[in-house]
């Protein structure tokens, strides 16, 4: 099974915001330049949340919830998108991402 590992920390240590209006490392950019190409080429995409300062809900909602707008279904993402973190403080982000995807899919 072809797996791609994507680390958000490689994109930016301080990602935030939804669009370029908010800053240079925003959720739309991460989704379009990293997540969508990976999901189109690989069967499984592992996203590593570790290594950043943290996340705001706008960034996560735009980056991950926005995948529904890009044409991916909730079930497809559930099977192929894996969110990884070893930091206990980042566990809440994992739960938040799942919720954003579900909310967008409604």
């Amino acid at each position, binding site marked *: 099974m072809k797996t791609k590992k994507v680390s958000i920390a490689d994109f930016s240590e301080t990602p935030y915001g939804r669009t370029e209006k908010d800053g240079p490392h925003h959720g739309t950019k991460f989704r379009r330049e990293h997540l969508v190409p990976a999901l189109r080429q690989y069967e499984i995409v592992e996203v590593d949340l570790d290594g950043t300062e943290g996340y705001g809900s*706008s960034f996560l909602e735009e980056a991950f919830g926005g995948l529904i707008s890009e044409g991916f279904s909730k079930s497809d993402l559930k099977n192929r998108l894996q969110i990884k973190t070893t930091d206990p403080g980042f566990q809440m982000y994992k739960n938040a991402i799942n919720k954003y995807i579900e909310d967008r899919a*409604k």
Partner: protein
Amino acid sequence: MAKKFKRDFLIRREKRVHYLKLKRIKRRSYLRLHPNNNTPSNIAQCARQAPDNVSYSKEDQAYRVQLPEGANLSAGYSDTIATIYTLRDAGIDRRTICNLDFSRLQEISTAAALILAAEIDLWNRRCKGRLKAATHTWHPNIRKLLYQMGFFELLNKQYVPSKDETKTSTVFLKFETGQVGVTDGGPIIKSFRKQIENVTKKKIEKHALFSALSEALTNVSQHAYSGSNHNGFKSWWVCGSYNQESSLLTIIFYDQGIGIPKTLKPARLPEYLSSGFGRMKDAERIQAAMEYGRSATKDPSRGKGLPDFLSLLNSQNNGRLRIFSRRGSCLFQKASEGKAETKEKQNSSIAIKGTLIEWIIEL
């Protein structure tokens, strides 16, 4: 003879201009504090009844704006905000020179200091070099605190420690600032976190701080300055203070946008329609934004950010969050996971320009 007459005429005219301008500033100040007293007969008296926080000095040919004894957003809210507006009004004319008189000031809160720093920062951008301050007249401890925050750099002054300074339990952090669409706020939040850790000598939950402040930044860029009168400066400021005795860390985020009450649209929820959302005051609108996570855009994918402000409270045992926006202020404390409980809300007659968010947490 003719030349002397012309010179005298110009001097009298200049005095008249400054007299009228001072009267206008005082009248505006009075009306802000008494918004319902705007009948012609009252307006005629209001210059005499306005707060005594501005005067014109013929020797310096400058306006003197004086801060009250206590500058804060609690008991001294009205006087403090009225003085800030006076400073702003005095600076509308870019030729104005203004003296900041802090000689009466005995204590200043972190929030009041940041709002003042923001006004001075904007003043400098509009009319550089026209803001003066006799820093040697300031109380030594006030001078030390404001130096820590970065006032001396704003005023282009050298700081010389005074022998009369006593050791204070509160330390101010240097403020940071940025502009929407220009500054990458992420690295600024990271360096602010490091400043906090240097001063407090304690580790702070970095993800909680980043969640809260990055959402504040996102709200500013997405909503705060949309269509507002910001004179081209879409700025934000962040600072903090730490009290070594109580281990209380205060973090303040401030912008001068249109404010949360104005950015929110009425909800479709029946209980809000029946409660007459359109008549809700500013404090109630702030409460609604936090407790119901409603967005300015009505987009269901939005409106999840304001509760991020609670992440800092969630990461600590004790903490509270206060939001000032326009005429309203709300005090929140953590209720359950991701939810806020409103502890207090107030509406004032005088509006703060923009939105100020204050977190107070125990480290």
